[in-house]
């Protein structure tokens, strides 16, 4: 109709084209308004203007490139991007991991103990039937059914298995490729499981449906840790997995399974990348007879990696402690049939052994008060840790310190309690050293770095960017709020927030999704320091970041 009318009114094709163009513009504008139907935060300027991006383009959050460790690590701290969280977790839930689900110990033992299969195998030619009943597809289906059954006992129940083709593979790589996985790759997912409030507090679900996704990843994470440490006994008298390492000369070598419950003083840790090898067979034979082997890449053990791992473990301990299980009670109910054993919270405690192994000598040179970037088993390295690694160490040790202060309320046995009771006091000097090192080597007047306000955070001679600054501020605010009561430290933090809000966020550069996530985290941290001009700017920045994240699309 519109085109016919146009033909009547305008005989000149030029005018026709002009009208069509104008009409198309109106339609586009209408669509634009429809897509931003979510109301702005009242009284605030456009986010683009706030962040200094005057390109005039609609600032969209691009998800491409989001599946990298740093963005996912930011996601795990923020809990403010449900779209990305759901996308990430679903990717793992149905993704293929380095350790096929058929080799996960719980699955293997289940298959091994299946009496029908055992009977069939013993009957002559029954092996063919056994193969039929235990074909790869059937086993995969059986595993999915088993998971689905377990997930019905997730808090509030879950229909995840009906929505997603879930798997129970271990060590799904983020950026790596099978048959190798790196510990660093897994850390953001583990952190996401334990940091998102949804499952643990009965708050909103992470995927808008139910707690099945988070519950499944909880099972997977605990299974992976169990496998890495080598706690699962197999029916042949050995242990599944065991990817621990020990120091050997200047490097690290594979150490095999460790059972911390047996009071061993063994010095072990997990780190770096592991490569799996096994003979390719059908699923049934893989489950029942294959002995997989792992090799380690022998890369330096970095403080960055270990600090994040220790932080995840502390978070896990906090979530799994008996007194914090109200919202996940169904996972522990059922006695012998419980989905998770009552002492599940002791599993993260195993990682304290790696703190004991690596922190006092390998990472910290006490004589010169140096925190190293990588573990030095021969004491020769003097490369200092980066600002981010230091801040991650602060957060990790602060978390453990806070959790273990109330260890006697965590239902631990006497022996375990005896071992961990002194940990907060032992960790305190390392925390103080890390904070002192940050203040000594990474904080400088902003005017020295083209800034105007307060104190800038610097690394390698340059002021750091938004993401790094946010994470450091989070670390400093956490340690100040929870552990180190210090008027001096509060003053420094406020001055750093002055620079963060007054200079860094106003720099006019484009802002990435990772940075938006961190801005939200920093804004939450800044609430403790209300009243200062920069904190007001930081809070506003948090609101704008939230809006932009909501605007983003897959």
């Amino acid at each position: 109709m519109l085109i016919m009318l146009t033909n009547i009114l305008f005989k000149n094709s030029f005018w026709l084209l002009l009208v069509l163009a104008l009409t198309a513009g109106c339609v586009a504008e209408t669509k634009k308004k429809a897509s931003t139907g979510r109301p702005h935060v009242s009284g605030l300027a456009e986010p683009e203007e706030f962040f200094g991006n005057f390109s005039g383009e609609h600032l969209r959050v691009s998800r491409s490139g989001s599946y990298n460790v740093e963005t996912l690590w930011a996601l795990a701290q923020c809990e403010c991007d449900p779209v990305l969280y759901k996308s990430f977790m679903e990717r793992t839930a149905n993704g293929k991991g380095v350790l096929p689900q058929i080799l996960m110990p719980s699955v293997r033992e289940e298959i091994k103990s299946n009496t029908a299969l055992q009977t069939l195998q013993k009957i002559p030619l029954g092996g063919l039937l056994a193969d039929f009943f235990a074909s790869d597809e059937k086993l995969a289906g059986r595993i999915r059914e088993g998971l689905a059954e377990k997930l019905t006992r997730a808090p509030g129940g879950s229909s995840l298995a009906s929505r997603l083709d879930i798997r129970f593979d271990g060590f799904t790589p983020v950026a790596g490729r099978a048959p190798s996985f790196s510990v660093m790759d897994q850390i953001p997912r583990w952190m996401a499981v334990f940091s998102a409030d949804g499952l643990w507090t009965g708050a909103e679900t992470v995927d808008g449906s139910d707690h099945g996704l988070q519950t499944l990843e909880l099972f997977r994470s605990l299974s992976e840790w169990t496998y890495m440490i080598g706690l699962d006994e197999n029916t042949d008298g050995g242990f599944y997995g065991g990817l621990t390492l020990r120091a050997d000369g200047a490097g690290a070598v594979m150490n095999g399974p460790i059972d911390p419950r047996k009071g061993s003083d063994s010095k072990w840790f997990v780190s770096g990348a592991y490569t799996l090898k096994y003979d390719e067979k059908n699923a049934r034979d893989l489950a029942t007879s294959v002995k997989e082997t792992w090799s380690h890449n022998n890369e330096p053990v970095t403080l960055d990696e270990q600090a994040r791992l220790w932080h995840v473990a502390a978070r896990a301990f906090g979530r799994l402690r008996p007194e914090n299980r109200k919202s996940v009670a169904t996972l522990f109910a059922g006695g012998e049939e419980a989905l998770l054993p009552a002492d599940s919270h002791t599993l993260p405690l195993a990682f304290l052994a790696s703190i004991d192994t690596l922190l006092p000598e390998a990472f910290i040179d006490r004589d010169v008060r140096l925190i190293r970037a990588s573990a030095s088993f021969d004491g020769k390295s003097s490369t200092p840790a980066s600002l981010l690694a230091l801040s991650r160490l602060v957060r990790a040790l602060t978390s453990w310190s806070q959790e273990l202060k109330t260890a006697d309320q965590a239902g631990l046995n006497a022996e375990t309690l005896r071992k961990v009771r002194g940990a907060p006091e032992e960790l305190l000097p390392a925390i103080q050293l890390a904070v002192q090192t940050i203040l000594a080597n990474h904080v400088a007047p902003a005017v020295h770095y083209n800034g105007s306000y307060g104190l800038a955070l610097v690394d390698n001679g340059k002021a750091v960017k938004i993401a790094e600054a946010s994470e450091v501020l989070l670390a400093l605010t956490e340690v100040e709020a929870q552990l180190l009561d210090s008027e001096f430290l509060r003053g420094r933090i406020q001055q750093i927030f002055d620079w963060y809000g007054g200079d860094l966020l106003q720099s006019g550069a484009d802002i990435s999704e990772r940075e938006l996530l961190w801005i939200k985290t920093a804004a939450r941290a800044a609430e403790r320091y209300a009243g200062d001009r920069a904190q007001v700017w930081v809070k506003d920045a948090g609101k704008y970041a939230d809006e932009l994240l909501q605007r983003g699309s897959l």
Partner: protein
Amino acid sequence: MKTLIHFYLVVTGFFSGVSFAQETLPRGIGLYQLGQRTYGLQVDSWNADGEKVSLGSRFDRSFDGQSMLSGKAGADLKRLADELLKYEGNNPQAAGLLNRLHLGRMSGDVKANVNARFVGFGFGINDSLTFFFGVPWISASVQSALYFSGENNAQAIKKELGDLAYDELKQGLDRASVVNEQQIRQNILDAGFAPFEKWEHSGYGDVRIGLKTSFASRLGSGLKLVTVVSPTLEIPTGYTEKPDLLTDVSFGKGYYSLGLAVEERLVIARSFWIGVDGSVAENFTTTLEKRLPEGNENLPAADRKTTVKLAPGDDVDTAGSLGFSFRWISAAYRIGLKRHFGDTYTGAMDGNYEALSANSATYQQYQQAKLSFSTADAYKKRSFPIPFILSLGANQPIVGKNSSDETYYEISIASFFATPMARSDRQVKDKKRKAGKKRGSFLTKTN
């Protein structure tokens, strides 16, 4: 603090008693001289800026953050300052922890008493060349006391740091909060120094030997120009500072010194004179034991004792003088300036050698006055039985840099004796007649 009293005593001029008579002794005639020099109570000196400061000012020290950081307050407090500075990004801020830290102020009270006696000897080798020799005997005592005062805010700094401060730092701040003179004194003793409250010593100073020659020329009626040349050698026999003592005083230079002095004097009407003189001394390298500081530390520990090589700077002295004589009395006034160029220290041990030579360059303007009473003429006329010269002198520094307040009063008496080498009066007259010149005996004036 080792240069608490840089009080090198140069006991010279003990031959000056005969400066109004013949500059040289006739052949075979000897002279002996005894003197007493009193420096009195020394309480101040000149610093490197030429300001008069008390001797105790070298103890004066503010125990503030910057002083502690520079090492001037000791190794422990430097470490404390280093750790506090880290919290400020190794960049001290005006109102930051380090610049606000203040533990108090130390000051000192130092008094020194010095007296010297000297013995001089001269002998006329021939009529125009005289040999002389002298040595002082010095007694000195130094009394010192330390005081500590002012507010100490170490506990406030510790409170501000709160839980951020680790245990050792808290303990360091606790110890810093109770710094007092007893602690400082103990630190000094712990560093291996001997108790410093009182020190006294008596002993020889440096021996000086030399030659003197003079010649005169008539410029006209009643005018005569006299030139005196005197090479000297100082032998380091005097006591020198010890590395384990803080407040001792050197009696000698510690090194050999070869000097040359030249004086020009215009004598007017046989009674008045005006003159200028100058001397240069080349000082020779020596080795001695010192505590070598590291960085800016003021109290090097005992294990920092080492043998160092000292290349001393040279000495120069110039002065102008005027005087008169009438019958038995003569008087003179001299004003001059002297300078010692800076010393250089070197050695095998690593350390701050510049600190050893700091303030070694000295400068002083001074004035001297002398009144003499001589019986030499009366003895010649056989109206007095004993020839002697009694002198009263005073020396007063006017301005100085890195030098002590060498104000002293001196009394000396000199007398003569003849040896078989000496000529009789008759032989002297014969010689004069042959030379066509009128010359009196050794006790006649040079006019």
